[in-house]
């Protein structure tokens, strides 16, 4: 993978592309470069390459177009690092279908977010609007996104508190549930009576604040408590 550097004219908008799908990144660079006002000063396929570029050319970027899913991690930290530079704006361009990921990017300091299902012309136009000082997101959209991040964080906090209340035995019951076992099989596997298994399950449902075995299983899988086989 290559970090590609280019040198800009005095009045060009300097763009850094951070995208691991090289053929798309190169096509995007081509789209920007054919517009007189843009110059792609850097291309990176990973967070490490983007950071190396920023170290080498600290004043070489006006707008960074950043994918969120990169081979060496999510783009959030990079967005925070870029946001700490007053003259750099970040446009997130992601294929993620999770609004919470876009919201998290805005919280990290992204000036705009676009889904990759956008037309290529919209991407170019978004960078143009950012550079001209136009906001891509309305204040109401930003507030809603920040609320979403806050809600997600609260939900995760509450989930972790609930998980911490589970006893080792209850975790074993959940794991057995994840293996597709019913009450009788779980009881047999753990050498307990079916009644005891049911007592464990009632306690699990109460602690996780869910209402069925299925919901408990979904909760456990979502938070990495069980491995579904």
């Amino acid at each position: 993978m290559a970090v590609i550097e280019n040198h800009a004219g005095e009045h060009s908008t300097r763009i850094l592309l951070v995208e691991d799908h090289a053929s798309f990144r190169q096509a995007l660079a081509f789209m920007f470069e054919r517009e007189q006002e843009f110059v792609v000063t850097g291309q990176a396929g990973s967070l490490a390459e983007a950071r190396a570029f920023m170290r080498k050319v600290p004043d070489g970027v006006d707008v960074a177009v950043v994918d969120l899913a990169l081979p060496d991690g999510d783009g959030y930290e990079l967005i925070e690092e870029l946001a700490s530079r007053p003259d750099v704006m970040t446009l997130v361009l992601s294929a993620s279908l999770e609004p919470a990921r876009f919201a998290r990017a805005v919280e990290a300091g992204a000036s705009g977010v676009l889904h990759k299902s956008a037309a290529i012309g919209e991407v170019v136009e978004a960078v143009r609007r950012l550079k001209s000082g136009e906001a891509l997101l309305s204040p109401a959209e930003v507030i809603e996104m920040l609320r979403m991040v806050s809600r997600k964080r609260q939900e995760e906090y509450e989930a972790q508190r609930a998980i911490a209340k589970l006893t080792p035995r209850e975790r074993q019951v959940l794991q057995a549930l994840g293996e597709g076992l019913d009450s009788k099989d779980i009881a047999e596997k753990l050498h307990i009576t079916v009644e005891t298994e049911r007592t464990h399950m009632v306690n699990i449902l109460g602690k996780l604040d869910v209402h069925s075995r299925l919901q408990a299983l979904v909760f456990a899988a979502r938070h990495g408590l069980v491995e579904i086989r």
Partner: protein
Amino acid sequence: MMLVSMTAQTGSKHEATRGDTPFLPKSPHKRSKDPAAKAASARRRGGRLRVLMANEPRAYREGIAAVIGQLRPEVEIEIVEPEALDPAIERFSPDMVICSKATEALKSRVRVWVELYPENASLSVASIGGRRVEYAEIQLPDLLSIVDKAEELAD
């Protein structure tokens, strides 16, 4: 990590470059004697190579199509949504297809195709005249090279 310097002098403003190497000169013209290639050639309208773009997401589809259109202006390009791949093969009779998921109709009717980033993965797969090629990290010049090979096969 490879670090490549590129200056405005070495790279044209209007022709994308990779390092200081211009995007792929077209490969030497070779005429195929393969009967299937002749059949593909017979389908071609006005002698132009036809490339169908049906990959997702849209930004990839349109961006790559724009580059092929500019750097290979003799190519006729059609862009469709991925769901429209099979009917588009029927209607457009492409010489080459770029898609995200190869269908049976594609495999049986098109000699050159690329499954680009299937399920958003980094691995891409191409079939070039029945030869399967895997790309761990396909580059834009690779795609242009496949277009050129499709042209050779179609001639």
